[in-house]
């Protein structure tokens, strides 16, 4: 379970205070697939970053089970991100000089590693339908294929929670649908929690729960 208590984060831009997260209270159980929608600039990315421990809240708490993220030192927080979170971005995020397979390996550089690393990575590539492209470099893949690889990468340490920030924003509708199907499969097969930020209403409809964000204020629909 991931939970926030009165989470606040604001930015001061040319003298003006912008509340990117305004007393956000949200509680998501393990295995849920939820969607967050909202206009651009409403604070969705900020919220995901707060949930994933990438930025420190001004006030309030983020709890994983009963663990307060910001009570930990940097090193333990990094370990927690490594083991329990997977991030999927709205932009190309693969390292261009590493092959698809090596990109999957990358997060293991910061953890204990696995005896069956290669099998593990190949299984994931198969899951996202990219096993025949394991040795391709990102530049040799289409945008949708790259996104699939980065999704597989997010799963390499078998995280409990996937935080996806507009994961299909720049993809065509068909690919988008495929990727959402992939999320649903992963969610069902592995029981991974998904928190997906999206503009796409149809994705939102497929989620188990729906939230919308407006000026840092999060409400469940």
């Amino acid at each position, binding site marked *: 379970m991931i939970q926030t208590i009165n989470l606040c984060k604001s930015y001061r831009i040319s003298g003006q205070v912008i509340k990117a997260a305004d007393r956000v209270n949200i509680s998501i159980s393990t295995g849920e697939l939820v969607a967050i929608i909202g206009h651009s600039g409403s604070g969705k*990315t*900020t919220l995901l*970053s707060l949930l*994933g421990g*990438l*930025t*420190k809240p001004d006030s309030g708490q983020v709890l994983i089970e009963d663990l307060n993220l910001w009570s930990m030192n*940097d*090193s333990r927080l*990094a*370990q927690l*991100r*490594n*083991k329990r*979170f997977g*991030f999927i*971005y709205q*932009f190309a*995020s693969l*390292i*261009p*000089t*590493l092959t698809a397979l*090596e990109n999957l*390996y*990358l*997060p*293991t*550089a*910061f*953890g*204990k*590693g*696995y*005896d069956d*690393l*290669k099998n593990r990575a190949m299984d994931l590539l198969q899951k996202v339908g990219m096993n025949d492209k394991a040795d391709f470099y990102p530049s040799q893949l289409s945008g949708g294929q790259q996104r699939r690889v980065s999704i597989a990468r997010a799963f390499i*340490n078998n995280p409990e929670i996937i935080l996806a920030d507009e994961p299909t924003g720049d993809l065509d509708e068909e690919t988008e649908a495929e990727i959402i199907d992939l999320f649903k499969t992963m969610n069902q097969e592995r029981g991974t929690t998904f928190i997906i930020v999206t503009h796409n209403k149809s994705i939102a409809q497929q989620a188990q729960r729906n939230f919308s964000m407006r000026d840092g204020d999060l409400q469940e629909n």
Partner: protein
Amino acid sequence: MKKFALYKLAISNLRRKMVRSILLLLLATIVSGTLLGATIFITGMKNALNIGTYRLGADVLVVPSENEAQARSALLAGKPTSFYMNSSVLEKIKEVEGVEIASPQLFIEPSSFTCCYSVDLFLIAIDPVTDFTVRPWLKNNQHQSLQGNQIIAGRSLPIMTESVIPFFGTLFTVVGTMEPTGMNFFDQSIFMTMDAAYAMAENSITKSMQPLKLEKGIISAVMVKTDGVINPDRVATRIMYALDGVKAIASDEVISTVRKQLSGLLTGIMTVSMVLWAMALFMIGFAFYMIVNERQRELGMLRAMGAKRQHIFLLIVFEAVIITFSGGLAGLGVGFGMLFALQEKIQQSLQLPYILPPPAVVRELVAASLIFSICTGLLSSLIPASLASRLEPYEAIRKGE
């Protein structure tokens, strides 16, 4: 493979901006090479000066004036040479005020017929009666005066006592070896009497393929011991005043002139090298500052994947060290290349043979240079790496847009 190794990411990052990486590598190579070359050169020079003439034992050395440079080369590095003057100078020198002992020496450069010696071998004929420079180095002080075709071998020569060796068609018997003197001039020499040398020259006309042209009565140099009342500089001046066509070198002066010539050069080289190094440090540091800047998003994503601050720090330092260490390796070639390329120029302009320090010292300097190149990488990337490690992950990902 159990997990992905961070250094692979560092290498892949360097490959990504190939041109920049190569330029940085070239810079590191040039700087490392220059520093290594300069250090070896300076150490070699200091070495040469330290083992130089002050151990020669003579206060003043008298040589033909046109052969001064050759004499210095011979003394400082044991570079085989030969030059001659008439022995009449000997008697005149003995009369100069302040001279206590004057002993002649004759230098003969053996021709290549001498088998088996890879070292530069130098033949020196001495007058056993008046000699005072060779005697102190004789092993166990068992100095029986040399007679007939007896010779004494310097310490660096792989020659056993009682072996028989031919020079210019005459057979000589080794009757003793010297203590190590630290001077190539002595350690690589074979000593015989003047008489034996003249006889050898005479015999060589009939017995040797390469006859030795040596008139009886000529000498190469006169070793002078002063009386301790008048200082060697003054004695040298007096000798030159009394005799034409000779150069009298006070042994202190051999060192001090060379030192004077060198010290300017050495400080210059050292300064240029250090400035070059500081510039490289700055440039590599600046390059990595830019690298960190342009790679912010990626660094932020690595943090999101679970990279700790140390990981990010290490990654940047790795990249810098890979460049400077490779530069250090390539710099070995450049450094030695420069030394050998400049060797001749140095010889000509300083009238001094260029001397490498002993192999053990060179090895140490090479190791030091590689360690130094690693430190250069560490030092130059310290600031960028620590900046990178302190980025907040979210800010980094966002700013990278």
